[in-house]
């Protein structure tokens, strides 16, 4: 019998409220090495809140999150310094991740066609290009678990397809990719699809179908 890959991310009974609004009411799921996991839900369903908790950016009121290995987090809105160039961003995150060289970052920049903007200040870049840099900063240290919040917003069709190639390549190397989206299309590309509704995570009726 084939051994199942190890569980690298486990969320158990995660709860989070903002005032009287109970956004997450006991969310639990697991993700294994080499899985592409999708979490879909309507606007305001709490997808971003869940991802922020998984990334350690937000503290849950209750419950726990266990993650094995390194993590990369791509926030929904690009969090960048508008006065710095793309290259300066790569340098700062190279220091943050303690990478000996920017090799992988430059490779990703190339894959996502940002190479022409390396020395441009971020404030002059288009929304799609900002999102590409946002994504590169989350992936450049080749983390074990990648948490992506609406990662392909503003991407043109070509880049969108290249994003999925990249996701497949990560999966192929045993990385775990968690993608949060309000759209449930392209679900055939995912191994697991969860639906976040009423603060709880359930299997999506669309899972495994096209």
């Amino acid at each position, binding site marked *: 019998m084939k051994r199942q890959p190890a569980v690298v991310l486990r969320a158990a009974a995660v709860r989070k409220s903002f005032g009287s609004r109970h956004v997450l009411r006991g969310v639990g799921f697991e993700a294994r090495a080499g899985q592409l996991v999708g979490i879909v839900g309507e606007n305001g369903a709490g997808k971003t809140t869940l991802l922020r908790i998984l990334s350690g950016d937000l503290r849950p009121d209750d419950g726990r999150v266990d*993650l094995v290995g390194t*993590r990369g987090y791509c926030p929904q809105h690009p969090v960048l*310094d508008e006065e710095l160039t793309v290259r300066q961003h790569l340098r*700062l*995150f190279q*220091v943050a*991740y*303690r990478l000996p060289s920017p090799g992988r970052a430059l490779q990703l920049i190339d894959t996502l066609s940002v190479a022409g903007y390396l020395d441009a*200040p971020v404030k002059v870049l288009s929304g799609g290009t900002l999102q590409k840099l946002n994504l590169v900063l989350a992936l450049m240290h080749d983390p074990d*678990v990648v948490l992506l919040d609406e990662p392909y917003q503003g991407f043109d069709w070509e880049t969108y397809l290249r994003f999925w190639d990249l996701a497949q390549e990560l999966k192929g190397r045993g990385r775990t990719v968690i993608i949060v989206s309000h759209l449930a299309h392209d679900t055939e590309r995912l191994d697991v699809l969860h639906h976040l509704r009423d603060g709880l995570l359930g299997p999506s009726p669309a899972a495994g179908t096209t």
Partner: protein
Amino acid sequence: MSAHLVSAYLVACRYALLAMAKNRLAAVLLIAFIPMWITVAKTLTTPKTFPFRLRATGTWLRAGGDEITMISGSLNAVSLLVGFLMFSAARRTRAFDRRLTAAGYPRTALIGAKLTTLLVASVLVSTYATAWMLLFWSPLQPFLLGIAVLAVCLVYGAMGMCLALFLPGEVEGLVTIIMISIIDLAPQNPVASTTADKTLVELLPSYGSLQTSLAAGFTRNATLSPLLHSTAWLTAMTATALAAFALHTRAHQPPAPHHDG
């Protein structure tokens, strides 16, 4: 200190200073506004001398209204400028600093870079403003005058960093800094108020700098005690800004351990 920390500090410092140098509005204000203020104060106000009591020493002095206005005006201009510069830098990098530290950037390196930026901006602006004042006027202790101007720059710069914690936009920050600076300097001006010797005045942020500037201009005493007030303001403001930074960038989970493979 590890080599990684030093290199992290140097990179953060270089980029913080580069980004600050791109603040065009601040550059225009520095190059045009400061000399204009000093020229207007010196040429358009009365050179008639006024008696006033230097609160720091209790001595009575006489000085030209134009010179007093120039001192007060320069302190006003530099404090607005450095306050705005530091506010705008702190506001711009608020979310980004959080992301960087979450990714593993050493917080001490970022804090070091912020303090260095504050110091560099304050030294540059105060040297420039003091040099302009010296073109018009020969104070008895020019070096002490420079120190007094530097002190007000540091206090307002740290105040700008503090304000960035809870004010959302650049306009809100600028207006607030202007209002604080007016409320701070107006009641202290010895020309406007020769009875400016109430205890409350001593609590104002620019008290130390104004008293030291007046002492530097019109006495030969190295009066340093008012600078203790500036130091107290600077310490309180910096501590608040850095504590808020530490709180804002704290991780909610220990970073995941690295593993091989």
